[in-house]
């Protein structure tokens, strides 16, 4: 009975586990673990069907259009994807700076540099803009592929490529929306060190999306 009373008076806002960890953080790590399995299944499917497309366009090899007889270039645009990869890597930097700014919100800032580094709105905006830029690159890539004759139904490469990168793009979109909700909270009442876990959880999701792209970039774009 005494135990029950003690529990009902426990602060509900903390959600601590018996290890003293916040349940929400345990939940996001478990979610990220399950997402790892989802993306590895998609990557596996891509790799299994790699090089088994019967008709073009192909990712790394030139191909002949059967209708026109023209020899066309490999479809992947490495310079553009390298640029989008760089943008996503930088977004991870902006995200950790946003988290650090929220965690150190109450600390006094004396110099201009400290004020810039402590501006959570700035870094959240930068992260969201970088994420949106990455999505813009992906939209450009998808559109150009469709114009060059590669759709999700064209061949095995098209099916597996659009499914894998499309799922990743959907995750980036969810991340950008999440960041915008954090920005809305920041403008409404200000994010402080008490909210650092909220930002930490969003940051973990964002970095996960980044690490998945690191793998996709190498396996899909760079390895021939």
């Amino acid at each position, binding site marked *: 009975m005494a*135990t029950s009373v003690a529990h009902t008076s426990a602060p509900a806002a903390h959600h601590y586990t*018996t290890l003293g960890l916040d349940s929400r953080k345990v939940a996001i790590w478990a979610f990220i673990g399950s997402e790892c399995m989802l993306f590895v299944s998609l990557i596996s499917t891509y790799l*299994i069907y790699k090089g088994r497309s019967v008709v073009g366009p192909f990712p790394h090899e030139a191909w002949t259009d059967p209708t026109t007889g023209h020899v066309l270039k490999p479809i992947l645009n490495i310079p553009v994807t390298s640029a989008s990869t760089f943008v996503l890597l*930088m977004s991870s*930097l902006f995200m950790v700076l946003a988290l650090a700014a929220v965690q150190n919100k109450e600390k006094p800032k004396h110099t201009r540099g400290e004020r810039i580094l402590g501006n959570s709105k700035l870094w959240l905006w930068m992260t969201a803009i970088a994420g949106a830029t990455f999505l813009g690159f992906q939209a450009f890539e998808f559109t150009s592929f469709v114009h060059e004759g590669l759709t999700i139904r064209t061949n095995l490469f098209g099916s597996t490529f659009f499914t894998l990168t499309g799922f990743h793009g959907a995750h980036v979109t969810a991340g950008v929306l999440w960041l915008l909700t954090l920005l809305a909270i920041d403008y409404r009442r200000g994010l402080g060190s008490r909210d650092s876990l909220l930002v930490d959880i969003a940051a973990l999701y964002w970095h996960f999306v980044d*690490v998945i792209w690191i793998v996709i970039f190498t396996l899909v774009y*760079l390895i021939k």
Partner: protein
Amino acid sequence: MDNHASTTNLPDSAEAQAHAPHAEEEHAHPTWSTYWKVALILTLITVGEVWAYYIPSFVAGRGFVPTLLFLSALKFTIVVMFYMHLKYDHRLFRVLFTGPLLIASLTLIALMFLFGHLYFKVM
């Protein structure tokens, strides 16, 4: 009775409070200068990867794929350790992340063998 049993399995508030500072200690994150250095290293590795892609003799060689896989794994580890703070956080988070990742990676390798992308050389 069941109700009582379930409540005794829950953490005591005093215990949870006692653990909370411990969790905070595990959570000491690196400084912004570390973050900049990590970003620089990640950028340099990515530049190296793309550079390697444009060297035909290297691409044709046997070292190309292992090198890219190693660099990719290195970038993955750096982001997870420093940006996701897994290096500084509680051990349970490491288990929650590396456990499924290990299962998924082993499944991937098994599938590669099953579909003939990887094979053992029989003498």
